[in-house]
């Protein structure tokens, strides 16, 4: 049970390991606050739609499952969009078009197809929660780095010293690609070295496997 929750945070982190849902990841992470709002919106939609799809998994004929999933996902996205507009209008204005686009974020359809359509409700909710939090975490890390270097602030609070020159490129699209690339590289390097270390300890005497073999990147879909 616990494994379902933590899988999305590190081992199968949707952004850093599975490389899915890249469009909002790159587009809205200009500040940490935007990343947090986008991540939580996706997590909300993911948990609700995974629970619903898991609940209806025996009732929906497999021939029409994709249209059913899309209708369910679109419903929760619209609900999230309306709630954001009603309660957090300033964040809603910044996220703009990217909230409706959660519908086509392949993390959500990917988890529906790969997990929620086969598993009981409780495990589906835990999986969705883990994936949603993993996505949120990734977006907040990206947003924090870009905001800190690009605006000199963090969650809107001035952090950098007086006279700090803002790296405008960090706010622009190239900054998103640079930051994401470096982070993915760092995380791959870390997990390769960590698993190499543990593999060496576990199989003492045996020849350690090539570390890169332990890095699984599951490609559920490409791009958005």
């Amino acid at each position, binding site marked *: 049970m616990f494994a379902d929750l933590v899988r999305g945070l590190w081992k199968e982190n949707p952004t850093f390991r599975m490389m899915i849902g890249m469009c909002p990841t790159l587009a809205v992470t200009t500040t940490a606050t935007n990343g947090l709002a986008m991540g939580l919106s996706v997590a909300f939609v993911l948990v609700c739609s995974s629970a619903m799809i898991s609940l209806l998994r025996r009732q929906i004929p497999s021939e029409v499952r994709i249209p059913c999933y899309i209708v369910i996902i679109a419903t929760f996205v619209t609900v999230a969009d309306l709630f954001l507009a009603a309660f957090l209008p300033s964040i809603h204005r910044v996220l703009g078009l990217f909230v409706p686009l959660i519908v086509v974020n392949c993390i959500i359809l990917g988890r529906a197809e790969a997990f929620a359509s086969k598993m009981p409700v409780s495990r589906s909710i835990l999986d969705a929660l883990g994936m949603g939090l993993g996505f949120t975490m990734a977006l907040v890390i990206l947003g924090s780095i870009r905001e800190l270097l690009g605006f000199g602030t963090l969650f809107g609070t001035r952090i950098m010293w007086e006279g700090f020159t803002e790296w405008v490129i960090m706010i*622009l699209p190239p900054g998103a690609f640079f930051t994401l690339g470096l982070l993915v590289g760092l995380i791959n390097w870390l997990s390769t070295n960590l698993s190499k270390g543990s593999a060496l300890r576990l199989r003492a005497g045996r020849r350690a496997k090539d570390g890169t073999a332990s890095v699984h990147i599951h490609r559920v879909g490409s791009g958005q």
Partner: protein
Amino acid sequence: MSSGAKMILALIIVSVGAGVVLAVVYNYANPKIEEHAALRLADSIGAVLPEASSFTKLESADVSFDPSSFADEIYLGHDGQGESVGLAFVVTGPGFQGGIKVLIGMELPGCTIGGVRVLEHVETPGLGARIEEDWFTEQFIGKEASGKLDKEIDTITGATISSKAVTNIVNDYVYKIAQELIPQLGVLERGSR
């Protein structure tokens, strides 16, 4: 039941369920969304037309011309006694990457600019997006509808195109409205009294 009927039934049930959920949430959230929009508009008009304490939207039924040929939306500002003190209008013009939506306040009878506020834009964050900053838009306050504003407004360093775009939008619409709309409006107000 045949598999075809099952498929149709499943889709119908899911769609109807989604429709019901959306109707309920929409009914709950929409008044709040409209409230925010109205508050934001009132706040913006108050900022560009400080003398006005209330405002009414200029509808095409109230006047002999089509207000939408001048601007997206036009509001008449009134002071405490109900006298017209100015106009506030929302206009859209081309920016660096997309349209820039600007709210302009024009004080009557002198046709001077009461204030300018950028409502919507898709300019580059950190560069062109600085057209929202107060020091830039405050430059317009008190300027006349001369049609030559581009020579009077400083551009933002690193955002020349975006700041020139805002200046041109304000310049063109203020000039056009002062020249073409205000005379018609004056005739109407004298006629109705």
